[in-house]
């Protein structure tokens, strides 16, 4: 516990840790303010097709809708912001030379690496929760509350979720988003144990995410056959908590795949670092 506390203290004492929070705040504020200013246009586009088949009343463009809308962009900018810290958490000790003071202490390398991984989880969770809470609080303030009406993810149609049910669904969605982002963080973390500075792990992780996303979205049979094996396929499984009915089986399978992916990467990082010669 002490090691985790010290790692957390070190991580949150650095200004680069707050870049992610700053960028998210900027994105959320700009998006929500622009949405507020363009509310009429957004409502028109939303209701244009729906009003042919449904009778819609009440506050449709509400804080929950805005939150779901912004969360959809999660897999685009969040991986980069996460790698800023996850790719740096181990390699920065080599860059600064502090690794030579750290690894000559009684705690084993495995314990130190585990503490750093837990800290990476704290950062990732903090970043996703910050995004979620900011979206909701600012959204509810600017747009008010109401039932959630959104397009069905992955197939044609709309989903309607009653206002009372939304908070718990959002909570699960955020938990799932943290789980997804930990898969990205684990890649950066593994690369961080191999590198002596944070540039390689950040670029390397982003390259993996981008390449996997591109491969997974190529409209060719060969690439489609690869899709189930790419972790990026499951990154957006949090959206399924806003589905109706909630596909628990699919969610469980996506969570298990991402979880195994993260554990495997962590175990590799552990093995690599335990045997690594510190030459820096």
């Amino acid at each position: 516990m002490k090691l985790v506390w010290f790692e957390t203290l070190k991580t949150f004492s650095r200004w680069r840790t707050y870049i992610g929070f700053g960028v998210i705040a900027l994105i959320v504020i700009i998006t929500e303010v622009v949405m507020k200013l363009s509310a009429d246009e957004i409502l028109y586009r939303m209701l244009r097709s729906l009003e042919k088949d449904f009778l819609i009343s009440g506050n449709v463009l509400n804080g929950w809708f805005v939150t779901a809308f912004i969360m959809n962009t999660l897999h685009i900018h969040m991986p980069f912001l996460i790698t800023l810290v996850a790719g740096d958490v181990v390699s920065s000790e080599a860059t600064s030379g502090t690794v030579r003071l750290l690894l000559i202490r009684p705690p084993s390398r495995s314990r130190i690496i585990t503490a750093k991984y837990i800290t990476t989880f704290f950062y990732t969770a903090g970043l996703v929760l910050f995004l979620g809470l900011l979206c909701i609080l600012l959204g509810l303030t600017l747009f008010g509350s109401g039932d959630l009406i959104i397009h069905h993810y992955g197939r044609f149609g709309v989903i309607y979720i009653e206002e009372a049910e939304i908070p718990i669904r959002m909570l699960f969605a955020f938990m799932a988003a943290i789980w997804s982002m930990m898969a990205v963080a684990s890649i950066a973390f593994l690369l961080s144990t191999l590198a002596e500075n944070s540039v390689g792990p950040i670029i390397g992780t982003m390259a993996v995410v981008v390449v996997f996303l591109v491969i997974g979205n190529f409209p060719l049979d060969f690439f489609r056959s690869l899709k189930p094996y790419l972790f990026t396929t499951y990154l957006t499984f949090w959206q399924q908590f806003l589905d109706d009915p909630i596909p628990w089986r699919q969610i469980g399978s996506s969570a298990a795949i991402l979880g195994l992916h993260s554990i495997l990467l962590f175990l590799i990082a552990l093995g690599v670092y335990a045997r690594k010669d510190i030459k820096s």
Partner: protein
Amino acid sequence: MEETLQREVVLRTLGLSKKFGKRWAARNLNLEVHRGDIFCFLGPNGAGKSTAIRMILTLLRPTSGSIEMFGKDLHQNRRDVLSRVCGIVEKPDFYLYLSAYKNLQILGSMNRSVRSDEIMEILDVVGLKSRAFEKVRTFSHGMKQRLGIAQALLTKPELIILDEPTTGLDPQGMKEIRELIKRLSHERSMTIFLSSHLLSEVELVATRMAVINKGELIAQGTVSELLGNEATDYTLQASPFHPALELMGSLAWVKVLSVGNGAMEVRVEPGRAPELNKHLVTHGISVSSFFPHRSLEDFFLKVTGGKSEI
């Protein structure tokens, strides 16, 4: 009893070797450090000193050989052994964005629970108490070096390992570190293992020493055994200067090599340096400094019989 304590081996390496690719950075090192020693590991840059220290402090995995500390195998008793050892490898690097106090709190607490007053006391010992809450980013190299020693002391180690602790310091800083090392050895009964490429530094602080070159151990023993009285060249400062110079010219077993800056370099027959000092004093000449003048190159030639080059 004192003799027993003096002879207790706190660090022993057996056939310690490290190979990087095809190159042996250290080969078959058999070192022995006794309790209470100020043990100096002497060798030129690139000789393998840091590699050996990194293996002793578990930063590098030996290719072969073993390390025992306090009678226990290091790799089988890592936690127990490392809780009794601390050190600085190369330069002391800290978390620059944290204060000296916070750095010590984090690093010290990895060994044992440290109290706030202990941290302040150690900072006082190294002369950094007034800067305790300033970020390390603002510290000079000398201050970081002292903070490095502070973090080592905070863990109350029985053995401190310092890799070239005076590198990059000005003469005053070097002197301060040397005095601190001696004080730690005498007042806190710590065993100190330090590496250096400066022969003069070894002579000033060490009780025992080992010499390494090109990864291999050349010699090991007490400083007097290895350096002995073989040195024949001395730097001498005396006054009045000219009568001292004339007196020396009259002695057949002394040869004046050079004169300048109020000092002279002289060559004395082996074993007769004390006699020269006495001779000068009895002739009313006061000797303000008289110290052997040896280069690492000369010393290497001596201990290797001219077979080893730096």
